[in-house]
């Protein structure tokens, strides 16, 4: 029926160039890198488990880099070495964990209870626009979005509802360009849930942060690409869409639905 239709030569050449350039840019990077990251995470986990396991060591891991100083300072008193450094170190260690939220730095944003950092579900779109630098109407002509640096970088998309004047319908976080598994340096800039899960977090990290979590379904019906859904106390949901092989979080959506809508920004 459409046998005589052929790709427009110019457009076809342009698409071919985009495909070839994409492969050239990404070849040998993503798969090898993922494996390296997995290996690194496995090594860290293994070393934690081997050296004693549990929360105590996880804390120790943070505290020990500075300790060489405190330990020798504690002069002669015999009692156990830990009590003295621990109380002094704990506040120091706790402070940097919760940095103040910076509207221009999505790595400081918390995802949960109908919000992603300064962005709130159901808020007027003007409020969203005012709360995040660079959040302006994107090329869809409908959604507001902001990319924090040159792509690929963390990207926040805020579609309002379908009618003019509708408030924020959902908040979508990914890496601009739909990167399947971002570079760890980019993933580190993602907003995160209170349990520390952001774009680029691995499946293992997700399962460790939310023990027992199960896929809520597949992103596309009949496909094998899962998503996870976290109910929030205000009735909203955090949806975590996984990447192609299900090994990492590709995008995170906060909305009133337990799955990402197929269509938005249109």
């Amino acid at each position, binding site marked *: *029926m459409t046998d005589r239709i052929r790709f427009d030569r110019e457009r076809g050449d342009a698409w071919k160039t985009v495909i070839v350039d994409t492969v050239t840019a990404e070849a040998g990077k993503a798969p090898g890198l993922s494996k390296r990251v997995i290996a690194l995470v496995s090594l860290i986990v293994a070393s934690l488990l081997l050296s004693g396991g549990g929360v105590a060591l996880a804390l120790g891991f943070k505290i020990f880099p500075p300790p060489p100083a405190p330990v020798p300072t504690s002069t002669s008193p015999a009692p156990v070495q830990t009590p003295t450094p621990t109380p002094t170190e704990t506040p120091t260690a706790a402070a940097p964990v919760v940095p103040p939220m910076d509207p221009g730095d999505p790595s400081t944003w918390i995802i949960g209870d109908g919000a992603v950092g300064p962005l709130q579900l159901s808020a007027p779109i003007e409020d969203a626009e005012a709360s995040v630098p660079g959040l302006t109407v994107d090329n869809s002509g409908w959604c507001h979005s902001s990319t924090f640096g040159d792509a690929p970088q963390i990207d926040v998309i805020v579609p309002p509802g379908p009618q003019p004047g509708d408030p924020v319908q959902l908040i979508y976080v990914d890496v601009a360009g739909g990167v399947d598994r971002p570079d760890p340096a980019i993933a580190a800039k993602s907003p995160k849930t209170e349990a520390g899960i952001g774009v680029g977090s691995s499946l293992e990290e997700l399962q460790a942060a939310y023990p027992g979590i199960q896929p809520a379904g597949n992103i596309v019906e009949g496909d094998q690409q899962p998503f996870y859904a976290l109910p929030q106390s205000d009735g909203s949901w955090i949806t975590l869409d996984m990447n192609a092989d299900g090994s990492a979080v590709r995008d995170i959506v906060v909305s009133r639905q337990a799955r990402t809508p197929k269509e938005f920004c249109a």
Partner: protein
Amino acid sequence: MTESSFDEPTAWAAARSGDPSAWGELFEAHRDRVLGHALRLTRSLHDAEDVTGMVFLEAWRRRDVVREVNGSIIGWLLVTANNIARNGARSQRRFRAAIEKLPKPEHETDFAPELLGRIDDDPRHAAVRAAFAALSSKDQDVIALCVLEELTMAEAARVLGVPLGTVKARLSRAKVKLAKTTADDATLSSALGGVR
């Protein structure tokens, strides 16, 4: 189901390992067939071209799970075209960075209207698109592969990763639905003549 004169298994092996020129060859070999299928799912040549391009980006992104059947990935590409067309805006967003590198489609202002008009005015095209859109996604996949693209049911089963019996059942169910849809539409009935 293999395209004529290039060694697709070799090209695909090279493509999977990240050879950019192999992706160029695969695109050249399959783009018109994927475009033809995408045109059944979209309302404009421009959209169909973008769906086609995104199909290949998706194939690159998911190269580890692309199914090669009888030495060709065409079946997987066609099913992926279904998914991308269904997910419209979401797919566009996923590949936004790539799409933004494309030049604006100048042909929309010259010969495209004539072509687009021909596509949209063609009652058979519109009828097939409407009937196809009314099917569930799983039925769309099986009709696309077995009826529109004439793969065997065994090939379709391998492309979709489901048992042959599942394809038979889905095809039978989809044919019944299409038969109901086409019952009062002579044009559609003729366009989908092989379905009953």
